[in-house]
C-alpha cells in the first residue's frame, strides 16, 4: 500500500485547484502504522469484566450474587451504582419497574408492532421500542437533571425547598418534563408510588422537592394538574440513587420487555405487511393538489432554485418554507452558547 505518487494523480476534478489549502495529489495513501508510543487499545470498563471462569460486576461475581439470593434488580444497583441496595430500596425499584412495564398501545408497543409486521427478529422490535423513549415520552433525563441542577444551585444560593420548587414551576409550568400535568387526575398510581416510597423509608429530598413542585404547580395552573408518572418515577429513582440517565435507561429497557410481548402478539394475531401493500387514502393527504409532471425539456422554466443571496431574501424564504410540512423548516433546534460548550441543547419544536 501507499506506492502511488503525486505524478499518478494529476488532473482529477477540482483536486488541483489552487484554492485547496493543500496539494491533494501529494496526500499519502496507506494505513497508519501502529502507535507504539501508547498502550494498545483495550476495552476499558469500571462496570464489569469477565475471564474464562467468572463474570464480575463492580467487584462482585454475578453468579455468586445470585447464589446468595440477590436478584436481577439488585444487579441494577450494582451496575449503575456499584453498591448493594437495602431490601427496601430493592422493593421500591421492583415497584417502579412494574409500573414502567406496560402502558397499553402507546408508542413503544406501537413501534414494536410496526417493526414486527415487516417479519424481522424480535430483538429488532424490542430495540426499536427503546427509541420511543425520547425527551417527551421518556423525559427522565430532562426531568432528573433539572431537579439535580436546581436543587444543587438552589442550595448553594441558600434557597429552601419551597423556593427551589417555585423557581422550577415558574420556569417550566407547561414543560412536558415537569412531572406535573393533567394526565393522572383520575389515576392514583403516581401518588400511590410516592406514598409507597415514604412507607418504605426510601423517599428523600427529591420526593420532597417533587411534592413541593406539585403544590406550586397546582397553585400556578389555571386548570387541574397533579403529579404524573414521570414525576413519581423520576423523583423516586433519584432518591434510590439512580442518575437521570440511569433512570432513563432502566425504565426504557423495562418497557422493552412488554414491547416483546406486543411483538409476539402481533405475529400471533396479525399479518405481515408486504412491500407496497399499505395504502394511504387521499383523505389523509393535505399536500399540493395532483398536477402534471412538467416535461424535462421545460425544467428551467419550472424550476424554483433555493439559492438566496441576501439576508432579506433568505429570511423571507425561511418563513415561506415553513409551509412545507416535512421540510424541517418548522423545527427549531436551540444550540448551546458556544462560550459554554458546543452541541445541540434541545431537539424538536
Amino acid at each position, binding site marked *: 500500500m501507499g506506492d502511488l505518487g503525486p505524478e499518478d494523480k494529476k488532473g482529477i476534478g477540482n483536486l488541483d485547484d489552487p484554492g485547496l489549502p493543500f496539494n491533494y495529489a501529494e496526500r499519502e495513501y496507506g494505513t497508519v502504522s501502529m502507535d507504539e508510543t501508547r498502550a494498545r487499545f483495550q476495552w476499558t470498563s469500571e462496570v464489569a469484566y469477565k475471564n474464562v471462569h467468572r*463474570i464480575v460486576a463492580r467487584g462482585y461475581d454475578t*453468579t455468586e450474587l445470585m447464589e446468595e439470593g440477590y436478584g436481577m434488580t439488585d*444487579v441494577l444497583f450494582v451496575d449503575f451504582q456499584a453498591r448493594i441496595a437495602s431490601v427496601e430500596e430493592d422493593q421500591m425499584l421492583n415497584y417502579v419497574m412494574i409500573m414502567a412495564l*406496560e*402502558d*397499553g398501545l402507546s408508542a413503544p408497543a406501537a413501534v414494536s408492532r410496526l417493526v414486527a409486521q415487516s417479519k424481522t427478529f424480535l430483538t429488532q422490535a424490542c430495540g426499536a421500542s427503546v427509541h420511543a423513549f425520547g425527551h417527551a415520552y421518556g423525559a427522565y433525563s430532562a426531568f432528573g437533571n433539572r431537579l439535580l441542577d436546581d436543587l444543587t444551585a438552589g442550595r448553594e444560593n441558600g434557597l429552601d425547598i419551597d423556593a427551589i420548587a417555585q423557581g422550577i414551576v415558574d420556569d417550566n409550568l407547561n414543560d412536558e418534563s415537569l412531572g406535573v400535568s393533567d394526565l393522572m387526575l383520575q389515576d392514583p398510581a403516581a401518588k400511590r408510588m410516592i406514598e409507597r416510597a415514604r412507607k418504605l423509608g426510601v423517599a428523600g429530598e427529591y420526593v420532597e422537592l417533587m411534592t413541593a413542585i406539585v403544590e406550586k404547580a397546582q397553585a400556578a395552573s389555571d386548570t387541574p394538574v397533579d403529579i404524573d408518572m414521570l414525576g413519581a418515577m423520576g423523583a423516586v429513582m433519584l432518591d434510590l440513587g439512580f442518575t437521570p440517565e440511569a433512570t432513563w*435507561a432502566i425504565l426504557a429497557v423495562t418497557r422493552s*420487555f412488554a414491547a416483546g410481548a406486543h411483538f*409476539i402478539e402481533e405475529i400471533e394475531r396479525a399479518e405481515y405487511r408486504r412491500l407496497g401493500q399499505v395504502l394511504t387514502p387521499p383523505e389523509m393527504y393535505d399536500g399540493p393538489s395532483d398536477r402534471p409532471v412538467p416535461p424535462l425539456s421545460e425544467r428551467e422554466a419550472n424550476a424554483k432554485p433555493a439559492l438566496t443571496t441576501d439576508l432579506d431574501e433568505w429570511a423571507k424564504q425561511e418563513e415561506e418554507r415553513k409551509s412545507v410540512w416535512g421540510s424541517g423548516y418548522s423545527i427549531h433546534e436551540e444550540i448551546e452558547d458556544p462560550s459554554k460548550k458546543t452541541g445541540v441543547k434541545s431537539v424538536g419544536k
Partner: protein
Amino acid sequence: MQRRADIERKTSISYKTEEKTVMRGYNLSDLAEEGYSFTDAMFVLFQNRIPAKEEEKMLRYEMGVFLEHSMSPSAAGAIGVAAGRPNLTSTIAASISTFGGVHGPGAAHGYMMKKYLRRAHEEGKTVEEIAEVLVDEYMDNGLPVMGMGQPQHTDSDPRAEPIHLKQEELGLNGVYLRLQRALEKYFHARRKKEGRDYVGVNVVGAGNTALCDIGFAPNAAWCIGSVCRGFSCAAHALFNMKRGRAWAASKREPMVQMLDLSMIKYVGPEDRIVPKQSERAEYAKNQKEEGEYKKWVI
C-alpha cells in the same frame, strides 16, 4: 391533548384508561402495592398468571446472572454507538439488536427442544432416547449443538451449570431439564469417545431450559434474555459517555483508542488510480472481463 392509542389493535395484553393501567386483568398499581416483584410481573405479561414462589426465584436468578456480561457483542455495540454521542436510547437499542442467531438466548434453542420432545412423543421414544437422536443429528451433520459451548468461557460458562443446579434445588426440573441434561450427558460422552475437547453447556442451554420449564415460550425467553442485557449495556454506554471521550479516537488519551487510525488494518485491493470518465467504458469492461474483482465481492 390527544389520548387515543397510537395504533389500533385488539390486544389481550393490556389496556389503559384515565383511571388505571391494566395488564392481563391486573391493575398494575395494585400488583406493585401488593408486593409482587418485577419478575412476578414478567409471568403476568408473558403467561397471564401469577407464578409459584420457586418459579419467581428461578426467573430472578436467571435474569440476574444474564444481565451483565462485560464485553460481548451487545456491550461492544452499545459502546461503539455511544462514540458518536447519540441519545442514550440509541446505544441501548443497538445492544438489544445485536442479539441475533449466535449471540445470546435466541429462541432457536427453545424451539429445538420442543421439536425433539414432540418427536419423542409422536415416535414413542423416551426423553433420553430423543436426546441422543438430537445430538447425533446435529453432530453427524457437522452442526453445533445449540446451547453448548461459549467462545469466551471455554472452561465452562460460569452461569450455566449453576442455573441447572438452582433449577433442581427449586424443584423445577421438568421435561426440558431432563432433555437438556440427557443431551449434555450424551454430547460429552460422544465428544470424549471421539477424542475431542470438553465443551460445556452455555447460558442459553441452561437458561432457556429453565425458562421453558417455568412456562416461557421460546420467543418470550429470548425477549427476557436479550432485553435484560440492555440494562447492563446502558451502564457500559453511560460509562463511556460520561467518563470517555466522544469519537474514541483522541490522540491525547494515554491508551490508543478504539477508533484511532492505527487500529485500521486494511486487507483489500491495492491503492489504485480513479479512472477518468473518458476511460470509464473500457476500464469497466476490462475489469469485468479480468474478473479479479470477484474475489472481493461480499
